[in-house]
């Protein structure tokens, strides 16, 4: 599969005044920008071209996420940061796990296995290392060798050389790394931008359903978003067909098509996330 051409990709851009706007390279080319900016632009361009060559090996991904993830799904050898939501991280693990891949969770003692099972993660093939102590890198590298997808808390600091080595190992083994917490070195960053719960009143009811606006950055810095419900993120074994579909017109993110009016559907209930 090929990434969307530059022209069509532009239409997918979020027309917004998001915080990430500043770091986003401008592809239309800026007139009279300093040389440093031009270099950044070129670098970003090279990155996006390189990425396009690597998308041959894709992991099964929950369809709702496959639509907004760069390359149309989780890439083998890719690294993903999830800003603020364990739920979203579980959804990333759910797709590969449902097809029998081994998953590993490192340094997250509060990871709820019951919720993970609800997402379709096979607990028999889930390895937990709640406390790697000071050996985060060694443990992560050892597990990258053997499991397909590793979820971990973003490290406090990681030297660029160490990251390069880990990255090389990820590519060599065809594993994917998902970090929880903002991490600039990752290929793309996902996050829950807005979230709304249904079913809870004041003193009555219980949490029943959740609507989220999730965002994902492309390697080029562009941002995509989608409005999903909690059930859309739950992977089942049957979903692995969907990720092979290229995101053609039918695969457009639900919230981005200008014809639909997501605002009227969701806006009144949504609140800006922290």
């Amino acid at each position, binding site marked *: 599969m090929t990434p969307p051409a530059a022209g069509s990709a532009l239409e997918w851009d979020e027309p917004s005044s998001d915080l990430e706007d500043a770091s986003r390279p401008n592809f239309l080319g800026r007139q009279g920008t300093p040389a440093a900016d031009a270099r950044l632009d070129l670098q970003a361009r090279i990155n996006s071209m390189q990425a396009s060559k690597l998308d041959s090996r894709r992991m099964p991904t929950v369809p709702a996420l496959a639509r907004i993830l760069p390359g149309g799904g989780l890439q083998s050898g890719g690294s993903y940061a999830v800003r603020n939501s*364990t739920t979203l991280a579980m959804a990333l693990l759910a797709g590969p796990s449902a097809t029998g891949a081994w998953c590993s969770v490192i340094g997250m003692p*509060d990871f709820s296995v019951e*919720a993970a099972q609800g997402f379709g993660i096979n*607990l028999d093939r*889930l390895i937990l290392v*709640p406390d790697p102590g000071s050996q985060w890198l060694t443990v992560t590298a050892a597990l990258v060798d053997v499991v397909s997808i590793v979820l971990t808390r973003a490290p406090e600091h990681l030297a660029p050389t160490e990251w390069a080595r880990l990255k090389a190992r990820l590519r060599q083994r065809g594993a994917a790394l998902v970090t929880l917490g903002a991490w600039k070195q990752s290929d793309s960053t996902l996050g829950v931008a807005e*979230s*709304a719960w249904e079913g809870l009143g004041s003193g009555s009811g219980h949490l029943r359903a959740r609507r989220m606006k999730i965002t994902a950055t492309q390697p080029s810095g562009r941002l995509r978003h989608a409005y999903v419900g909690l059930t859309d993120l739950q992977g089942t074994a049957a979903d692995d067909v969907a990720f092979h579909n290229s995101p053609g017109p039918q695969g457009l993110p639900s919230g981005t098509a200008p014809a639909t009016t997501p605002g009227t559907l969701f806006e009144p209930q949504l609140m800006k996330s922290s």
Partner: protein
Amino acid sequence: MSPTLSAVPAGTAPATRTMMLWCPDWPITAALREHALPADAALALVDRGEVFACSPAARQDGVRRGLRIREAQARSTGLVSLPYDPSLDERTFEPVTAAVETIMPGVQVIRPGLCAVLVKGPSRYYGGEDKAADVVFGTLAAMGLTDVRIGIADGPFAAEQAAKATDQLEDPEAEQLVIIPRGSSPMFLSSYPLEVLELPKLTVLLKRLGIRSLGDFAALKASDVRNRFGLEGAIAHRQASGLDHRNVVARTPPPQLDTVADFEPPLARIDQLAFAFRTRAGEFVDTLREAGLVCTALHVSLHTESGEVSERRWQHPRWFDADDVVDRVRWQLQGTQASDHGLTSGISRVHIVPDIVEDLADHADGLWGTGPDEGIHHGLARVQSMLGHGAVLTAIIAGGRLLADRRVFIPWGDAPSSPAKVPVKDRDQPWPGRLPGPAPATVFADPVPAAVVDSSGNPVDVDSRGLLSADPAFFSTGSDDGRRPVHSWAGPWPINERWWDPKGRVLNRFQLVDQSGSAWLLLLENHSWWVEASYD
């Protein structure tokens, strides 16, 4: 015609002269020794709710085999009841067999407590069958076994009956030996009832035909019995006639698979011990491999200088190699498991006993390499040897009211322990206090303190009747200082854990959604608030 029978020359084969060694109530003797109980204790071994065996003291109180445990306890108030463990019988009978083997060859264990010995050689060596029996009595008495019966007769069946006949003698203290002279076994057996054959169907049939004793049965023509009752009947007929075709098949003493390493002077440091034990662990694995076996579970006992013993059973998802054995010894010393106790002095002895051994052929590598799970195991074993046995976990979902209780971690390679193992059907049953709706993604292993206040800033509380003092308006969690306004909430949902137990807990659960749209699960216990989980 059965090949088994045709192989035996009909009628004329003389039965092998056999000494049968019988230790009455062996399960009881074994249990008394294992649990260091006095010999006159009223003890019953229980198997599936019924008495399997009982000691003489219990028998005097009226306890019988097959009685329900409640009934037995009612009859004998001081009754000690223990679960019956067949492997214990075998384990404790092994030294007895070994002791007899040192003085006479050709020992066959029929079952724990009963073994047969070829008497021909020993009787010639010791100068008579009674003298050979005396030597056995002497050897076993030195081991502390005094209640041993010996019967010597033609063939194992007659010898067993002779050994059991010691029970019926007037003075069992004096007479523990019955010798049936050569050739008179048929006469000795003739008065026995048919039940000793232990063939209920045949016994009933013969009784209907008017045959009541082994003598009557033996009087029938062998060919008639074979035609009418088949192979089973023919074998029984030969036994009744004192012409037991069975021979004593001497066992080959099993190879010593366990390994012991003694350290003098005792070693105080783990790395020293691991280094010193490495060669021995290699020998242990090699011995097993030479026997064509691999070990999948083993017992490690560590003896210290001051006499403490730390014992643990370790399992392996595949099989142990030398490094794995050393790792287990190290982990046991590091005390990563709660069941281990710290040792205070140096290690003087390490004893490794293979608990489960399997055929090497069942674990051989495939022709086209091995499965993907093998790679997983090697990688995880590497992490385990870095961080310790308990650091690499798999999880199962167990029962419980609180979310943190519902998740049970099992170290990689261990089988789920019995209390944590909940049958699948029970797991699907609704628990009282089960949380409706989607499960929260983060469940705090240690609850985070929180504060919930009403609109005027007073703490929200629940009284003993379960009524809320005021609607929650703001809340804050321990991790951040900001006061978040409550958007919507529900509760209190009471959780009454183990109300019969003074240590039981009374909690109230709340669901809160703050203005930013994130949801929280809070607990209120004893007027203090905790964050149980977060729907992040």
